[in-house]
């Protein structure tokens, strides 16, 4: 074989190989797209660092939502919910005139939430959803000013999700029973008491 033909063969082989590689890549990305993104794989492209938050306060046995919703048709109609989520339908007063389920819940995969721009966020990072409207509160929350913090003042701080204190469907903080008022100073009368007679702390085990 002449050197000329050798060169042509080489080029042809190289072309064939590169074509093959490209097409397999295209194929594999196609098949990846078709798969539903898992909650854990949702890209985290928000400027919020990882906050230490306890798991979301789901009602018993309600998650994952896809257990029921996977096989159901999506009905975007505003309506009284009758069979399921009746209590949510009843309490719902979170700007309810402007809002309905699928403004926050993702219709295609109920196990995640959906932002106004179409991005998906997990229930563990639902603060990104609330922060869309409540921007000033979100800013204060990130700085540690809004909401309860526990842990170490100069170390690891435990944050809470918005939904730990505010029911997302009825967000106003609910009134609670106050603990007893202090004794009036006029009532101070010292008497030696046995251990059983000493008044217990009315706080009990509240943490």
């Amino acid at each position, binding site marked *: 074989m002449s050197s000329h033909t050798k060169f042509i063969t080489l080029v042809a082989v190289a072309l064939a190989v590169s074509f093959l590689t490209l097409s397999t890549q295209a194929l594999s990305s196609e098949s990846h797209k078709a798969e539903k993104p898992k909650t854990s794989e949702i890209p985290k492209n928000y400027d919020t660092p990882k906050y230490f938050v306890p798991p979301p306060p789901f009602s018993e046995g309600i998650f994952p939502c896809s257990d029921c919703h996977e096989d159901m048709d999506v009905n975007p109609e505003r309506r009284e919910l009758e069979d399921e989520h009746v209590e949510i339908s009843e309490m719902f007063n979170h700007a309810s005139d402007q809002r309905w389920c699928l403004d926050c819940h993702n219709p295609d995969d109920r196990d995640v939430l959906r932002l106004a721009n179409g991005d998906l966020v997990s229930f563990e990072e639902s603060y990104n959803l609330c922060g869309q409207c409540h921007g000033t509160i979100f800013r204060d929350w990130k700085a540690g*000013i809004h909401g309860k913090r526990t842990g170490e*003042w*100069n170390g690891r701080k435990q944050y809470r999700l918005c939904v730990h204190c505010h029911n997302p469907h009825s967000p106003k903080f609910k*009134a609670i029973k106050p603990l007893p008022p202090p004794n009036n100073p006029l009532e101070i009368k010292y008497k030696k008491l046995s251990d059983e007679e*000493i008044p*217990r702390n009315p*706080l009990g085990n509240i*943490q």
Partner: protein
Amino acid sequence: MKKKTSSKSQPKPITRRNFLKGTAAGAATLAIPVGTSDASIWQSFFQKHFQEMSKAEMAEVIKRMEKEYAKKYKTSFNIKTTGALPDTLFGYGLDLSRCIGCRRCVYACVRENNQSRDPQIHYISVLEFEKGHKWVSDLEEADKYYNPEEVPEDGHFYMPVQCQQCENPPCVKVCPTKATWKEPDGIVVIDYNWCIGCRFCMAACPYGARRFNWGEPQIPKEELNPKTHYLGNRPRYKGVVEKCTFCIQRVRDNPGKYPACVEICPVGARKFGNLLDPKSEIRYLIENKRVFRLKEDLNTSPKFYYFFAT
């Protein structure tokens, strides 16, 4: 007659002055019940001021005290003497736009700090005000004894008051025994073993933050907090003054925990941090929110900042 010039060979004659001196010392010795107790009464009687103790003396005192408490309360106590962290000045923030007056803080403080249950001692007073009525200019008009079914009550708002940890504390100035002083991290503390119970500090405090043990403190055994600090929540004695110390036994560790009232607050109205750290929560709220300090005109310079987040 010739006056005696040398008395070396003869015993010193008992003068009236020497006689009285001797009698007083003898009486003092007799007053201490030697037969019924060990050396700890002597040691506690001659215990030095906390700030003047050497490390060894402090360890000795703590050992003795832990023994005394164990005997008295029938449970073992741990008494820390942790000093102030470097570059730390503690500050506190309280969001009046969030507080709902539920008094969780009052009783979390009692649980953490071993306050007497009877006679009752609370470090925090939650004041209730009617909206639109006289407020910070007239704290006397506030209701401390409100007790509705649920809080917040319509048309009312709440303001908890506790020790404001003043930078210029009037209570410290009036103490005749220097039993109360301001620590390098800004916490105003009391040495309960040096307090003589004169209550000058209570009269001097413009915030009514100090409390007096009118009787022997009584705490149920199962509710005792055995993790204590010498300057903080160790059990107190009858006849001494006590008050909030920002939970000195929690906050002085590194990393240190939040005070108990911060951790219990269900609405997250209470904030705590280092005023010298520009990235701290307390600095953020002072720089970004509407803030005021109670009775600022008295020049006490509290490190307790009331603020409005909304």
